[in-house]
């Protein structure tokens, strides 16, 4: 044991933080599972568990783009949307072929991730040449486009397979798919996915968060992560040491998109009906707020703020109409408190022992 402790002490600070992050997530999962099995959680809390896991994964993956790569993305929910609807289609199509729900969920999440990665590649390849706020606006536009496209999508499944129709004119309905007697609708245009068999659960959420953490943290601590952060810190110097900017930017962006896709698939399979409006600009912003409040590049910060800010509006239910107003005020106040020199000095006086907690992680 003593040997282990010395070994732990000799580890790098980042490695220690990573271990603590994994352990924290595992501990919370165990506690919540015990509480759940003991029937100590009310229905509202239970309903929040899967979304919290999804948002944690979303926040960590967006942190890869915004914190580690240093590119502002305002369309992260777009990738979630791609993952959600492709995941729902896959899961609903495999109802009879793969009756085992966990296996089907895993397939759906992998497919969701792959589709989101493909879309990420298509968006990222041309767009990552743009800089700063222009990238932000293009990702924003992309998110809106995805939402609109899914609104035009009609998908059904019957004995002869998958039927997909793109309803551009807005005049077609699910009947135009020509499903036979065994057929059922999966996505009904603007109504979104309906009648989805919900197969998402806390364990899947936990696995999603762990996989996301392993991928993002290990990527960050490998040669690719160093290169990505080097590009963030100084693109010109990064090129001067031979780094291929496009390759590494795309690597971070596509990985981030794929993880959002997996999170989206889990999210989509948690609800029997789902509209594409759910993944609009506001959701992208919501996730961005998690990342910024948790700290850029700070992975456990993202986890924490995603969980806290998903619970906060629910906890504020008693304030009913005022809750979003309170949320807005909290948001502004936190930003001022963490970024304004006078505020910071004021808090430093209150907490004299705390040393430079705002130091950037990674």
């Amino acid at each position, binding site marked *: 044991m003593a040997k282990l402790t010395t070994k732990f002490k000799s580890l*790098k600070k980042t490695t220690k933080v990573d271990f603590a992050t994994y352990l924290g997530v595992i501990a919370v999962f165990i506690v919540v599972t015990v509480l759940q099995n003991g029937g100590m959680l009310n229905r509202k809390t239970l309903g929040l568990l899967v979304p919290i896991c999804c948002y944690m994964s979303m926040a960590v993956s967006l942190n890869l783009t915004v914190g580690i790569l240093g590119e502002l993305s305002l369309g992260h929910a777009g990738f979630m949307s791609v993952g959600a609807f492709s995941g729902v289609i896959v899961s609903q199509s495999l109802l009879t072929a793969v009756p085992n729900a966990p296996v089907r969920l895993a397939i759906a999440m992998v497919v969701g991730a792959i589709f989101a990665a493909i879309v990420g590649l298509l968006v990222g390849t041309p767009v990552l040449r743009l800089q700063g706020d222009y990238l932000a606006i293009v990702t924003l536009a992309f998110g809106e486009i995805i939402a609109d496209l899914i609104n035009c999508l009609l998908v059904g499944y019957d004995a002869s397979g998958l039927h997909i129709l793109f309803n551009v004119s807005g005049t077609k309905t699910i009947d135009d798919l020509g499903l036979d007697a065994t057929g059922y609708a999966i996505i009904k245009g603007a109504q979104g996915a309906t009648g989805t068999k919900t197969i998402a659960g806390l364990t899947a959420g936990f696995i999603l968060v762990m996989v996301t953490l*392993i*991928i993002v943290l*290990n*990527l960050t601590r*490998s*040669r*690719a*992560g*160093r*290169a990505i*952060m*080097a590009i*963030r*810190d*100084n693109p*010109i*110097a*990064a*090129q*001067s*040491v*031979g*780094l*291929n*900017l496009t390759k590494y930017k795309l*690597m971070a962006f596509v990985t981030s998109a794929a993880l959002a896709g997996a999170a989206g698939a889990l999210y989509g399979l948690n609800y029997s009906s789902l509209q594409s409006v759910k993944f609009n600009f506001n959701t992208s912003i919501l996730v961005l707020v998690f990342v910024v409040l948790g700290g850029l*590049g700070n992975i456990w910060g993202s986890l924490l703020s995603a969980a806290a800010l998903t619970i906060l509006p629910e906890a504020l239910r008693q304030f009913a109409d005022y809750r979003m107003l309170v949320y807005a005020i909290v948001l502004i106040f936190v930003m001022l408190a963490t970024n304004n020199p006078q505020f910071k000095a004021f808090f430093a006086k209150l907490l004299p022992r705390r040393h430079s907690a705002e130091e*950037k992680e*990674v």
Partner: protein
Amino acid sequence: MTQKTKLVPVTREPALLPERDADKSPVLECIDLGITFGGLKAVDSFNITIGRTEIAGLIGPNGAGKTTIFNLLTKVYQPTHGTILLNGRDIHGLNTAQINRAGIARTFQNIRLFQNLSVEENITTAMDTQMHYNMAEGILRLPRFWREERVVHERAMELLSIFHMEEFADAKAGSLPYGAQRRLEILRALATNPCLLLLDEPAAGMNPSETAELMENIRSIRDTFKIAVLLIEHDMNLVMNICEGIAVLNFGRIIAKGSPDDIQNNPEVIEAYLGKKKEA
């Protein structure tokens, strides 16, 4: 202001190579290199040859176009005309990253470190092109990940030992004092295994004793790694002491070229630096 410059022949000149390099092909040849910014010839008819293990200097007043030449050599700017031969190979069409992989590494006048990475990571990042494990191996931490990471760690420590900076390996690069940041930039450039090292004002902001040490370091780097060095510097003491060949630039053109002795006694160079004597 009269702009009197000697015309430099556009042919390849007999090199000013140090004797030990004379029988080897030069590492770098620039032939009639030039760039125009909206009608202004920032660099014009730039011809230079650098020997395999030469330490060469590029001097000239502020705004003469010295850094522009570094930017041309590394393709931060695209030359309007002229040819650059690196190890006899035309590097036309390569981008900045490819130029580095072809063998030119540089430092920057205004320091450009990876501020939020550690000192060690700044160096290991520069070794990225020499590493082979892929993204999946990195995420899954397969054996090749550990093997290569160990190798680059050891090499980084070796490089840091040149400037006795091992103890700062885990410090954030941005937190280093100015002089140490300059030295780290040199190490980062070295980490890419170049055959030609471009140093843009390496001694800027250093005191005389630091400069003297740096001089020794540059020489020993050249001897250890058997590479050529081209440096821009305003510290004449440093330039005259360690450079074997010097080119003087004024208004984008070479006004003199030669050994330190030649340069020190060249009237045109003196004029460029001190201004023309008023004729009575």
